[in-house]
């Protein structure tokens, strides 16, 4: 078993009186494929936002690769190697696909040689990896839902992440598209990227995850292998009712 890459320790997040996350602790090992499930409003996206720095947690600490990042701004965490996709794709809509991917290349990967590096070829290579090579110079407005999700993934990958966090990257995709996306994500895992995946599509979670965590009302309700999780009485109660 390899060492811990991400350590979330007793993280709490409140929105006014509403407790979105309550003392959540979670460790992700280097190279692991972790699935996160839970009903709507259970705090999955809030957890991601706290890990990535879009939100600051109210209590608890977050460590990444031995560095305490709890108070780091999101862009600093991105530079350390935490990348994410957004639940609703957020492309840079005034740019072409290649330019979208060039932003993280310039601001993370080639940060130290900003003025010299020509990132265009590299951006195209990353798009090709996602099967978007022929759309590189197209504006993002013309993209289909599945291509938007791939662009989201390509842009996250361009930061050369060590931890990739995917927020419902398959929502709204057809069955064939889910398989295609899953193939891409498993390929990234084989290249050594640690991946956390939030997903409602159980088929994808079961095939993808080595370990699954189930959140409910801001707390971790169950944790285990996919097989254990589907047998867990707590999970069954949350998803199916009493």
């Amino acid at each position: 078993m390899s060492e811990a890459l991400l350590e979330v320790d007793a993280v709490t997040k409140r929105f006014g009186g509403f407790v979105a996350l309550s003392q959540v602790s979670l460790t992700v090992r280097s190279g692991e494929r972790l699935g996160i499930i839970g009903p709507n409003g259970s705090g999955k996206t809030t957890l991601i936002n706290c890990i990535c720095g879009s939100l600051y947690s109210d209590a608890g600490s977050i460590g990444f690769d031995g560095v305490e990042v709890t108070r780091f701004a999101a862009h600093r965490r991105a530079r350390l190697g935490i990348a994410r996709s957004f639940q609703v794709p957020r492309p840079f809509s005034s740019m072409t696909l290649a330019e979208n991917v060039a932003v993280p290349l310039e601001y993370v990967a080639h940060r130290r040689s900003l003025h010299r590096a020509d990132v265009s070829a590299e951006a195209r290579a990353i798009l090709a990896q996602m099967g978007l090579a022929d759309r590189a110079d197209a504006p993002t407005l013309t993209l289909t839902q599945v291509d938007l999700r791939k662009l989201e993934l390509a842009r996250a990958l361009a930061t050369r992440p060590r931890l990739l966090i995917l927020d419902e990257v398959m929502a709204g995709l057809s069955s064939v598209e889910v398989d295609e996306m899953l193939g891409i994500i498993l390929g990234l895992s084989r290249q050594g990227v640690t991946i956390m995946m939030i997903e409602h599509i159980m088929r994808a979670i079961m095939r993808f995850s080595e370990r699954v965590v189930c959140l409910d009302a801001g707390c971790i309700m169950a944790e285990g292998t996919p097989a254990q999780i589907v047998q867990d009485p707590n999970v069954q109660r949350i998803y199916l009712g009493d």
Partner: protein
Amino acid sequence: MGRWTKFIVGAVAVLVVALLLARLVSNEYFFFAGYVVLQFVVLATAWNILGGYAGYVNFGSGAFFAVGAYTAVALIKAFAAPLLLQLAAAVLVSGLMGLAIGAMTLRLRGIFFSIATVAIAVICETAVLNWGFVGGARGATVLQPPAPALFASYARLLFVVMSLLAVLAVALARYIEISWIGRGLRAIRDNEEAAESVGVPTLKLKLFAATASGALMGMAGAPFPLYMSFIEPTSAFSLNYAVSALAMPIIGGTASWAGPVIGAVLLGSAQQIVTVTLSSELNVLVLGVLLVAFVVAAPDGILGLVRRLLGKAGAK
């Protein structure tokens, strides 16, 4: 450096033409009008760095302009400072003002910054109204020094100086636009949270843009007291500057440095012509009507229109 060669040739050509005009044109009014148009080129270009590239709309351009102008007045009153020093001080003061307002408001998104810029304009005007040293509400008279040997009048010198400032402002805007900074600012405008998530230090970039934008606006205002020979708060803080600085880039097109230049030259000239031939009140109306027309019919401005037409022609 291939992508700068053409620009530098163009910039030098503009300056040579400005110098030639200053020698050849006999009508003195030409320089008064030309100065105003060039001043709007600087203002529009400055506004576009923050408003166009990063999408943070500044309604208080007039305040930055006036702070530049009054910095110059204060230096003239205190030390009879030369124009170059007035310019440098105006850049510094209004740049710092941009940085300070940015630091206070740019952590918030979108509209909050815009509201703060309106507030700051009111605060600055009130402060100047009550500052007796620079004339307060009565205004202050500034004597133009004798024109240097090369120039027949001081207005001609100021015309050439403003040409140089316009070229400098556009060069800075163009540098920002085509560099990694510009790409970061565009990412911020498109989606700030996504920009942050791919490593763009959004706050730092916004502060940089606010500082550069403010500094250039102040620079545009610095020669204003000498140009007018008289300054008073109502004209220095005129709403016309705030509206023009925003309308010209939007009408010209905010995506590229050429947009504010086109907008400022077209509208600035139109305003001058309307002022002379029809009435000085009408020129603000012209601006307003055009702004509404463009926002509704061509949100990408003249540049966007041209690109769309070229794109259609290319597709055939």
